[in-house]
C-alpha cells in the first residue's frame, strides 16, 4: 500500500514548481493523498476552494515562467559554452513592463477575493445560532435558542496515542459528543474561549476563526449535504493543543429535531 503510494508520488514527480502536481494528478489520487484542500461542502468552503485554485493556477504560471527564464539563462549563457557578457545594466521599458503587468494581475486577483470576503462576513439572516466555547482542552457547544448545551472532548484512548494499541481509522479526530447541525440551514456560530485563544476549524465547512477569551467572534455555516465532518483546534493553546478535535454531524431536519428532543430529555 505504502510502496504503491510512494510510487505514485515519484510518478507524479517532485517538480520544483510542485503545484504542478495538482494539475498532473487525477482528483481521486489527490483525495487519497490529501494533496489539496478537502472537498468543500458549504458555499463558503466552495468559494474558498475556487479562489484557492484560481490563485494557485496564476502563481503556478508565474512560477513556471520565472523558472523557465532562469533555466534558459543557466543553460544558454554559460561561460563554458563561450557566452560573452553583454554590458547593459538597465532598461526602462523592461522595468515598466514588469511593474505594470504584476499590478494588473494583482487587480485580477483582488476582485474575486473581495467578493468572497463580503460573502463570508455576511452573518445576517441566520436560521439558528450555536455558541462555541473553547477551553483547555475541548469544546463546549450551546444551542442558544434550544436550551441544549454539552461538552465535546477527544475520544481517542490514550493507549492508541502511546502506541500500545493499534490506531483507529479516525485517530485523533473523534470526540465523545458530536456537534449536530441541520443540512441547508444558515447556522450562525459565535465563538469565544474560557482560558486561552483557540481556533475552531472544520476544513470542509469553511475557514477557521479564533475563539478568544473576552471576545465574541462570529462565522456562518450552511452545509449542502449530510455527513460527518472532522476538524481540529488550529491555534496553539497549550499542552493538549493537538488533542482537541471537532466532529460535526450534518443531518436532515427530522433527524435534527429528534436529536434535539433526545438532548433535552437527557438534560
Amino acid at each position, binding site marked *: 500500500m505504502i510502496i504503491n503510494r510512494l510510487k505514485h508520488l515519484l510518478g507524479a514527480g517532485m517538480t520544483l514548481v510542485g503545484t504542478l502536481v495538482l494539475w498532473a494528478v487525477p482528483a481521486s489520487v489527490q483525495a487519497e493523498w490529501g494533496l489539496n484542500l478537502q472537498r468543500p461542502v458549504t458555499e463558503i468552503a466552495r468559494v474558498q476552494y475556487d479562489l484557492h485554485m484560481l490563485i494557485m493556477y496564476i502563481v503556478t504560471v508565474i512560477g513556471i515562467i520565472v523558472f523557465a527564464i532562469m533555466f534558459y539563462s543557466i543553460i544558454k549563457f554559460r561561460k563554458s559554452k563561450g557566452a560573452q557578457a553583454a554590458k547593459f545594466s538597465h532598461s526602462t521599458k523592461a522595468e515598466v513592463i514588469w511593474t505594470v503587468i504584476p499590478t494588473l494581475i494583482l487587480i485580477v486577483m483582488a476582485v474575486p477575493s473581495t467578493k468572497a470576503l463580503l460573502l463570508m462576513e455576511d452573518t445576517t439572516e441566520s436560521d439558528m445560532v450555536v455558541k462555541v466555547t473553547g477551553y483547555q482542552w475541548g469544546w463546549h457547544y450551546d444551542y442558544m435558542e434550544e436550551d441544549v448545551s454539552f461538552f465535546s472532548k477527544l475520544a481517542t484512548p490514550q493507549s492508541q496515542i502511546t502506541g500500545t494499541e493499534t490506531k483507529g481509522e479516525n485517530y485523533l479526530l473523534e470526540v465523545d459528543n458530536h456537534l449536530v447541525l441541520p443540512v441547508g440551514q444558515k447556522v450562525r456560530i459565535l465563538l469565544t474561549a474560557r482560558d486561552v485563544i483557540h481556533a475552531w476549524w472544520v476544513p470542509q465547512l469553511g475557514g477557521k476563526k479564533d475563539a478568544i477569551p473576552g471576545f465574541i467572534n462570529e462565522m456562518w455555516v450552511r452545509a449542502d449535504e449530510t455527513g460527518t465532518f472532522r476538524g481540529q483546534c488550529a491555534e*496553539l493553546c497549550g499542552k493538549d493543543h493537538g488533542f482537541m478535535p471537532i466532529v460535526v454531524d450534518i443531518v436532515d431536519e427530522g433527524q435534527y429535531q429528534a436529536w434535539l428532543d433526545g438532548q433535552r430529555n437527557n438534560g
Partner: protein
Amino acid sequence: MTTTVADHHHDEVPKGITRWLFTTNHKDIGTLYLWFSFIMFLVGGAMALVIRAELFQPGLQVVDPHFYNQMVTVHALIMIFGAIMPGFVGFANWMIPMMIGAPDMALPRMNNWSFWLLPFATSLLILSLFVPGGGPAAGWTIYPPLSVQGGMGVDLTIFTIHILGMSSILGAINIIATIMNMRAPGMTLMKMPLFIWTWVITAFLLIAAMPVLAGAVTMLLTDRHFGTAFFDPAGGGDPVMFQHIFWFFGHPEVYILILPAFGIISQVIPTFSRKPLFGYTSMVFATAGIAFLSFIVWAHHMYTVGMPLSGELFFMYSTMLIAIPTGVKIFNWMATMWRGSLTFETPMLYAIATVALFTVGGLTGLMMAITPADFQYHDTYFIVAHFHYVIFCGSVLGMFSGVYYWLPKWTGHMYDETLGKWHFWLTIIAFNVTFFPQHFLGFAGMPRRIPDYSLQFAEFNVISSIGGFVLGFSQLILLVVVIKAIRGGKKASAEVWENPEGLEWTVPSPAPYHTFATAPEVK
C-alpha cells in the same frame, strides 16, 4: 587603496582570549558574530530534529507534548534572534567598512558590547528549558493569555528578548553611523554597493521595530507579575492587542531577516554573471518600498482574529502590493543573469537557489495574502512550508552564498569547491524533500504546532522527517569547509574572482587586520 608602511606597523594582531573579549576591531567582531550565529544555527537545528523525530510517525514516541511545544518555540527564537540576525550583523561588521572604504565601524566599543550581549541573552533562553515548568511553550509569537500561563521560563524569554533587542538596536545605530559618515570620498549614496543599501534600510527597520517588541514583552511581564491587565479581558484588557503590537514588530522583522540576504546575492550574481547589476536604482527603491510596506501589512498574520471587514480588505490589498517591489527585485536578478557569462561556483549556486526558491516562498505568500483563502491556510503546515521557503531559502541560503563568496577574503584561502558543491546539493535537495510536502499537509488540513497527527498525514510526515535529518547533518559540511579554509588551502588573490566589483577586492586576501587607514578614492 594601497597598503602603506604605517598600516603594517599597526597590523599586530593581539593574542589570547583578551583579543576576543576586548576587541574593537570590526573584523574580529564580525568573526565572533558569524561563529556565534553558526553555533546557534546548529543548536536551533538540533531542536528542529527533535520536532521532526516526534513527527516521524503518528503517536507520541520521543517527547511529551509540553516539551514539544518548548522545542517549537525555542527553535524559532534561536533561529531568528540567535542565528539569522547575528549572522547578518557579522556580515555587516566584516564587509561594510571594507565595502565603503572605512578603517572600521564608527562606534567600535559599542560594537564590542553589542556582540557580547548576545551569548548572555541566548544562554538565558536555553537555560529556561531547565527551570521548573520548562521553557516558553506558547510559540515564538508568545501570545497571551497562553504565555501568561507559563512558568519562569517565560520571564527568562522576556529578558532574553530585551537584551537581544538592545544588542540589535546598538548594532543598527552603529551600522547607520558608519554608512552615513565613513564612506570613502566619492562614494555617494547612489554609488554604494547594494549590500550597503539593504543593510542601512534594515538598520532603520531594526530601530523602528525592536522597541515595539520590547514594549509588548514588557507589558506581558507586568501582566504576569505586577497585576496589570493589558492583555487580560477579566481586567478590561485585550488579548488581540498583543497580536497587533507583536506583528507591528513582527512583519518588519521578517524583512530584517531577508533584506541583507537580498544585498548579498545582489553582490554575488553580477560577479558570476560578469555583468553589472541590472536596474540598480530600481533595486534601491524596491528595497525602500518593501521596507515601507512592511509597516502597514502586519494584520495579515491575524486574518482569523475577527477583524472588521474594512480591516481585512485593507490588509489584503496592502499585502498584495508587496508582490510588486519583490517582483522587481526577482526580475532584476534574472535580467542580470540574462546574456551574461555565467559560471557556477558555490556562491553563485547558492545565489541562484536563493532567487529560485525564494520565488516559490513569495508566490505561496501571495496565496496567503488572499484573505478568504487564508482562512483555510492560516495556522496549517502550508504556513510552515511558506516561511521556511522564504526564511531558509531567502535568508539562510543568501548567507551561505555570502560565506562562500567572501570566505577567501576572510581567510586568505580558497575553500574546497568539491565540498562546497556537496554542501549545496545536499542542502537544496534535502530542503525541498523536507518542506515541499508540507504544502500538501497544510492543504489537507494539518494544523501547525501539533506533536501528533491523524493518519492521513503519515506519509508526507515520514518524507519530511527524512529530509529534515539529511538537511540538518549536511550543515556539518559547512563547518568542515570553513575550518579547512582557515587552516590552509590554495592561496587566494586579492581579487579572488574574475573582476569582481567593490573596494573589498582591492585589499589583499586575507584582509589585513586594519584596512583603509587611508581612505581610497571612488570615481
